[in-house]
C-alpha cells in the first residue's frame, strides 16, 4: 500500500520534471531538440506526449505544433530502432539456445532439433549447421529430431536438403529420434530418408557414428600401407 503510494507520487514528480525540462528548452531560441523528447516518450508514451505538445504549442508563442510533432516522430523512430536492435539481439540469443551443436565425440557433432521449424528458421539452421560441420571437419553429424513436434512435407523436404548438403561436404549423417506418429506421417508422405543412417536412439546413433569414423580410419590405414608411388602404376583397384 505504502510502496504503491510512493510509486505514484514519485512518478508524478518525475513526469513534472520531464515536462519542466522540455518547456524550458521550448522557450530558448534554438527550440527543443530530439534528445529532450526521447525521455518524455519513453516514460509517458506517444499519446500523452502528443496531447502535451498540442497544449504547449497553443500556450507558447512561436511554437509550432507540426514542428514539435515532427521532432517527436524522429525521437520515436530512434526509440523504435533501439528496440528493434534489442529484439534482434534476443532473437540471436534464442536461436543459439534453440539449436545447440554439441561435439559429443571426436569428429562427431550432435544436433538436437527442438521446437517447430518454419522456412526461415530452417534455412538459418541449415546455414549454421553446415558452417559448424565444415569448420569442425566433423566426420559424422547426428541429427536428433525427438524435439520436433511434427515433420510435414515442408520440414521433411528441408531435412532432405540439409542432409544432401552435408553429404556434399563429405560428412555422414545419422538420424535419430523419429517417434511413431512421425514415422507414420513420413511414410504416408513418401519421405524415407534413405540417404542417411537411421538409429533407434541416441546410444545407437553414437555407436553408428563411431563405427563410421572407425571405418574411415581403417580404410586410410589399409591404403597407407602401400608405397605411394606404386598406387598409380598398374595395380589400380579400379574395376569399373
Amino acid at each position, binding site marked *: 500500500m505504502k510502496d504503491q503510494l510512493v510509486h505514484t507520487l514519485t512518478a508524478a514528480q518525475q513526469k513534472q520534471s520531464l515536462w519542466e525540462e522540455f518547456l524550458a528548452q521550448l522557450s530558448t531560441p534554438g527550440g527543443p531538440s530530439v534528445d529532450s523528447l526521447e525521455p518524455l516518450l519513453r516514460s509517458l508514451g506517444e499519446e500523452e506526449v502528443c496531447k502535451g505538445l498540442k497544449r504547449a504549442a497553443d500556450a507558447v508563442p512561436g511554437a509550432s505544433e507540426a514542428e514539435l510533432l515532427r521532432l517527436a516522430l524522429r525521437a520515436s523512430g530512434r526509440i523504435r530502432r533501439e528496440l528493434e536492435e534489442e529484439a*534482434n539481439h534476443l*532473437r*540471436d540469443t534464442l*536461436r543459439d539456445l534453440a539449436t545447440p551443436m554439441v561435439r559429443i565425440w571426436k569428429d562427431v557433432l550432435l544436433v538436437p532439433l527442438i521446437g517447430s521449424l518454419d522456412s*526461415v528458421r530452417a*534455412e*538459418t539452421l541449415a*546455414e549454421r549447421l553446415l558452417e559448424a560441420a565444415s569448420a569442425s571437419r566433423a566426420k559424422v553429424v547426428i541429427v536428433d529430431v525427438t524435439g520436433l513436434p511434427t515433420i510435414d512435407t515442408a520440414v521433411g523436404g528441408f531435412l532432405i536438403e540439409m542432409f544432401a548438403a552435408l553429404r556434399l561436404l563429405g560428412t555422414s549423417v545419422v538420424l535419430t529420434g523419429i517417434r511413431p506418429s512421425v514415422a507414420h506421417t513420413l511414410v504416408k508422405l513418401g519421405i524415407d530418408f534413405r540417404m542417411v543412417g537411421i538409429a533407434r536412439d541416441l546410444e545407437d546413433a553414437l555407436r553408428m557414428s563411431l563405427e563410421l569414423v572407425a571405418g574411415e580410419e581403417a580404410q586410410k590405414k589399409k591404403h597407407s600401407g602401400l608405397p605411394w608411388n606404386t598406387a598409380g602404376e598398374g595395380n589400380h583397384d579400379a574395376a569399373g
Partner: protein
Amino acid sequence: MVVHIRREQDIATARQVVKNFAQENGFSLSDVTKATTAVSELARNIYRYAGTGSVCLRRTTRDRGTPGLEIVAVDRGPGIPDVARVLSGGFSTYERSLGIGLAGVRRLMDEFEIRSEPGAGTLVRAAKYRRGF
C-alpha cells in the same frame, strides 16, 4: 541496373553484379550464393537459347520494409514450348542444363514467375528477400 547478355563473359558480369548487390543489402552468405547462382542460370539460358537478352536488377521490398532483390531476365529468343515440363526439374531433353536450371532458380528464390511464348521470347521474374532470423 541492366546487364546485357551478348557474349559468354556477360554471364560472369551478371553474376558479379548480383553478388555485390546482395552483399551490400545484408544478405547472408548462402543467400548471396543462391541469388548469384540463380542469375548465373538465367543469364546462361539467355546466352545459350536466345543468343542475346538482358538481366535487370532492382531493389524491392516486402511487408514491413524487408529489402529484397528482384531479377528480371528477358529475351526475344525461341521461347519454351512446354514451361511446365521444364520446371518439373531433372535434366530435360533440352541440351544440358535448361531443365534443372529453371527448376533450380525457382527453388532458390522466394518468388518466381515465367512467361514464355514460342517464337516471341521468354520473361522470368524472380525475387529473393533478406531473411529475418
